């Protein structure tokens, strides 16, 4: 197995509606990543496209539709998808291509156009439910998150105020991200608690927005990385795991599948004590409680401890374990697969010291990114290491 390095990253603006087609968005993100690496289309051996359901863009087999924007014409090309987990699963698939030796340089592109489902992506989300058992009850996806959040809060006795702190932190962090959709420098806990209740216990400001956007990453193997940089960032570990769709047969308070994916990644990276050895984290935060839920799933703290760390400021950018320094999904936006921009591109830029105003102090050397998807099922994890 070859060691894989990240040599370029790029992403587009995230907004509810962007004029660009999916292909054009893929092009813009890839172009930025190529500018970072200093390569062009002919240098790329293989391409991986990550994009969540066809139902959002409204183009069946959208992997094939997007490929020309993703520099895929005439190349070995594959599209991977596992719902929200795609943002980290696509880079994992890119890692397979290079680690196995079949590609020296692999491009990973993630794209999403949620604005195409009209009037709201909820119409597409409706079809994730089982058609026989769940859809006749006409559920709304927010209900599912609300039920999980309720279970998490009840089992650990967590108050909404502590969870609202996550929205406040991430939306404030996002002010320093040029692509951010919902940054707010002045947001407070009261704002979150007073925002309209969607499905208790979820308030409007606890939820990330649907977005259009794209992100790209370029990987190469260790043998040739010296051509691109003297200070390589390596993929230290990857992990992925999925649980059953029978979500009503599980206790939702702890994401077992995230823990399994994390253990796989820590083992590969040779990490024995995650809390000590990981310098910062980008867990998936489509809802505010999810950041806490996933921090515990990533074994970075004990079960029920994540809200305490947040309250004590440990997860701020200048804290002991910065979490979502990019602004996460809550602040930057949630174009499902393209959240690779905040989850993995961010790790890469932070480790290189290129994150600008978002830069974490203190020379971070190891970061972990995680995504989550489907019906409370998929956990995907990637660890990046400097040098």
């Amino acid at each position, binding site marked *: 197995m070859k060691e894989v390095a990240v040599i370029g990253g790029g992403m587009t603006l995230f907004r509810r*509606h*962007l*004029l*660009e*087609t999916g*292909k*054009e968005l893929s*092009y813009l993100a*890839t*172009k930025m990543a190529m500018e970072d690496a200093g390569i*062009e*289309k002919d240098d790329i051996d293989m391409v991986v496209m990550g994009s969540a359901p066809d*139902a959002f863009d*409204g183009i069946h087999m959208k992997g094939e539709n997007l490929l*020309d*924007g993703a*520099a895929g*014409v*005439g190349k070995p090309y594959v599209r991977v998808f596992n719902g929200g987990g795609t943002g980290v699963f696509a880079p994992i698939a890119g890692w397979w291509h290079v680690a196995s030796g079949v590609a020296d340089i692999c491009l990973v592109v993630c794209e999403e156009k949620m*604005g*195409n*489902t*009209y*009037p709201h992506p909820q*119409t*597409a989300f*409706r*079809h994730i439910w089982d*058609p*026989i058992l769940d*859809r006749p009850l006409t559920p709304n996806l927010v209900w599912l998150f609300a039920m999980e959040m309720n279970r998490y809060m009840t089992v650990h006795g967590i108050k909404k105020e502590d969870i609202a702190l996550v929205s406040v932190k991430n939306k404030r962090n996002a002010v320093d991200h040029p692509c951010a959709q919902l940054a707010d420098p002045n947001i407070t806990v009261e704002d979150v608690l007073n925002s309209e209740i969607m499905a208790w216990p979820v308030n409007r400001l606890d939820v990330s927005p649907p977005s259009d956007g794209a992100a790209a990453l370029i990987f190469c193997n260790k043998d040739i990385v010296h051509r691109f940089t003297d200070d390589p960032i390596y993929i230290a570990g990857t992990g992925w795991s999925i649980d059953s769709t029978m979500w009503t047969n599980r206790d939702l308070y702890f994401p077992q599948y995230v823990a399994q994916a994390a253990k796989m990644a820590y083992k590969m990276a040779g990490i024995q004590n995650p809390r000590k050895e990981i310098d910062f984290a980008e867990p998936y935060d489509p809802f505010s409680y999810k950041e806490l839920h996933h921090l515990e799933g990533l074994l970075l703290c004990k079960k029920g401890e994540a809200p305490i760390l947040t309250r004590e400021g440990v997860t701020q950018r200048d804290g002991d374990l910065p979490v979502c320094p990019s602004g996460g999904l809550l602040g930057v936006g949630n174009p499902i697969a393209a959240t690779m921009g905040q989850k993995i591109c961010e790790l890469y830029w932070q480790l290189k010291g290129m994150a600008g105003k978002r830069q974490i102090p203190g020379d971070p050397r190891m970061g972990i990114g995680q995504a989550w998807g489907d019906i409370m099922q998929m956990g995907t994890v990637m660890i990046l290491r400097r040098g």
Partner: protein
Amino acid sequence: MGFLEKQTDPTSPMHWRGDMQADYFYPSGVAGDKFFKHLMENDTFLVSKCTKCNKTYCPPRLYCEDCYVEIPNENWKEVPPMGRVKLYTVAKLNAHGKKLATPKIMALIDIEGTNSAMLGIIASGDIKKDFSGVKVKAIFRQKDMREGTIKDILYFEEI
């Protein structure tokens, strides 16, 4: 029935009927928006040409898919909406398999002055004719009825 039991009653298992309801809104894209906005005011096609390989795209693109370079504004130009039929077929059934009242002639038309072809309908009563290589031109909706979609081209007509 569990897996280990025999299934002898043909009326069970049952089926569950449903549909996928969703409406879609597809913005034309940066290149497409320019093309359609131009088409609303003019009876010509805007096309774009790659600086590296000289391939001319119709409808126009923001970037060349082969060379992967952006096509700058200076490389856009207008061409008359004409071309030659490259391939065609006569459709007698609609998308749901029902017979059409009048058969439709669907054609792929090489647009003159470009390296691209566009899909279009040929308006002709003569479905037995061989349209290969025939020169055609686009007939548009009236300007005040144009909406900025591909349907602003009504059909192609033999010249």
